[in-house]
């Protein structure tokens, strides 16, 4: 009796194992197949990429699509540089401005602290498209349309509140005793922040900066609206704008451009992957 039951359980467990592995394999295919398809297509010739019966892998692998991006009529290198410059600038500026705010929200006592914290959280959730028209008019009057600075201003609308919240969670984790010691040594607040706290949360600054960088890299609506000259465009917007032109049928070229647009984000992503949960739920201890 007992043996039969144990046997049966062993059998179901083995079946469960097999089902589990098959499910994981399917999940991997679902997750990776589109990425594989992008890479494979980027090495296909224009003709092969447009074939009615798609070839599972490049029959005659070629680098022409990538060469075309840099030697062709499109200023692809400029797109790349624009995106890197504006996203990096946003990340750096956001982290610098947000650090003291995060410190104050974590440590200082002031009456509007909870209100400020909540306001930052709500700011982070605002629909960008609602800010779009007023921001456009603002940048127009400030003569910042079509400039990198204007884009950075736009990216700051979501990058800054996010950076404040995420950095606050890093400051929260610094033991207060460290600061007490510095206070006894006669350090003032700003000195404590920059000489004691900032060195301790350097990894946090880096992670937060990377997050802001990624969010800016993903943004399409701002560059599409605030940049009017193609040469000054960022990669995501350039992909959208040029698709109707040069890449209309050139899926190989399109996918090569897509691959190069993905690469920096992929590197940034896997660099901060471990802090990902903290980043996306930062603010989860709101009001604490």
């Amino acid at each position, binding site marked *: 009796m007992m043996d039969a039951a144990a046997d049966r359980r062993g059998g179901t467990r083995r079946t469960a194992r097999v089902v589990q592995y098959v499910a994981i394999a399917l999940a991997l295919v679902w997750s990776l197949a589109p990425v594989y398809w992008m890479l494979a297509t980027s090495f296909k010739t224009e003709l092969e990429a447009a074939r009615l019966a798609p070839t599972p892998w490049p029959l005659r692998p070629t680098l022409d699509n990538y060469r075309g991006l840099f030697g062709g009529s499109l200023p692809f290198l400029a797109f790349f540089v624009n995106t890197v410059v504006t996203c990096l600038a946003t990340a750096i500026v956001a982290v610098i401005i947000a650090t003291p705010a995060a410190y104050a929200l974590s440590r200082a006592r002031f009456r509007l602290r909870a209100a400020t914290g909540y306001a930052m959280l709500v700011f982070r959730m605002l629909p960008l498209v609602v800010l779009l028209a007023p921001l456009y008019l603002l940048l127009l009057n400030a003569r910042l349309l079509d400039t990198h600075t204007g884009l950075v201003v736009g990216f700051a609308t979501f990058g800054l509140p996010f950076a404040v919240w995420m950095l606050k969670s890093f400051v929260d984790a610094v033991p207060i005793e460290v600061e007490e010691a510095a206070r006894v040594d006669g350090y003032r607040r700003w000195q404590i922040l920059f000489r004691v706290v900032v060195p301790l949360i350097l990894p946090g600054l880096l992670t937060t900066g990377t997050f802001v960088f990624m969010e800016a890299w993903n943004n399409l609506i701002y560059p599409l609206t605030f940049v009017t000259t193609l040469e000054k465009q960022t990669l995501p917007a350039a992909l959208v704008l040029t*698709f109707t032109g040069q890449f209309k049928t050139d899926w190989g070229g399109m996918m090569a451009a897509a691959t190069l647009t993905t690469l920096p984000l992929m590197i940034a992503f896997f660099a901060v992957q471990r802090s990902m949960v903290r980043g996306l739920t930062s603010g989860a201890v709101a009001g604490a």
Partner: protein
Amino acid sequence: MRVALAGNSRRPAARTAERIPWFDTMVLPSAGVLAIVVGYPVVYTLVLSAEDYNLIGTTPPRFVGGDNFAKLVHDPTFWQALGNTLVYTFGSVAIAALLGLALALLTERASGRAGRIVRALLLTPWAVPFVVVAFLFRYMYLQNGGAINALLLAAGVIDTPISWLNVASLALPAVMVTNVWAMTPFFFLLLAAALAGIPNEVIESARVDRARGWSLVVGIKLPFLRNALLVGCLLMIIANFNDFAKIWAMTQGGPGYATTTLVVYVYRQAFESFAIGYASAIGVVWLALLLVFAFAYLRALRVR
């Protein structure tokens, strides 16, 4: 210390209250920048929503009170866009959350090097920029030469290739599949972290009580995941409400208005029709909707 306290004891509450300042100088840089780039636009949107303002029109902006909102109520496209937004948001978030949960439970016991690699690979879609995701799926959805049609034809599921993004009834589901693909890793990572956070004793004592398989998952694990699931869903609902890149790069809201969500509609009104006033009115309604979710989010956090 004690002496000082004793000296203040006549009006202790009033004295401490006096010493707490209203604001902190360290917050000023952030607050100042946000007041200009977020606060001002929000207030300006409220003002614009009561104006008849055409960006390329010859007439100056004119105050029209609630006219824009009255127009809104009778605008079928607005209601369709609102409906699309709700379907797109709640549909994608629900499916992605379930898939993410399934993946988290599936890979829970996968440990060691292989486990780490599998987990990292499952996260890959997250690292693909939204616009790239959109174009990639657009290519795969092609009627002629698209990978998805080729696969379905080969498997015998369909007889003739389908133009997924050009059929009104199929376009929204097709975009949602794309969205789910991009969003699932978020739930996977969040829930995997929450699963790892369940104390061992809880699982062990449940095992002693002969809870296995489904009963272990539903009875013991799910309650522990509730908060993570709630916070994750609310965050993604807000993110999806605001999603522009994927929809715009795939369909631009078409065919017709089949995939036009509120973002797309506002964008079209403001930057294609240049009806800034009307676009702002839609924005205000939407802002109100979003605030509801924002408050739900804040409450959920406090419960936590």
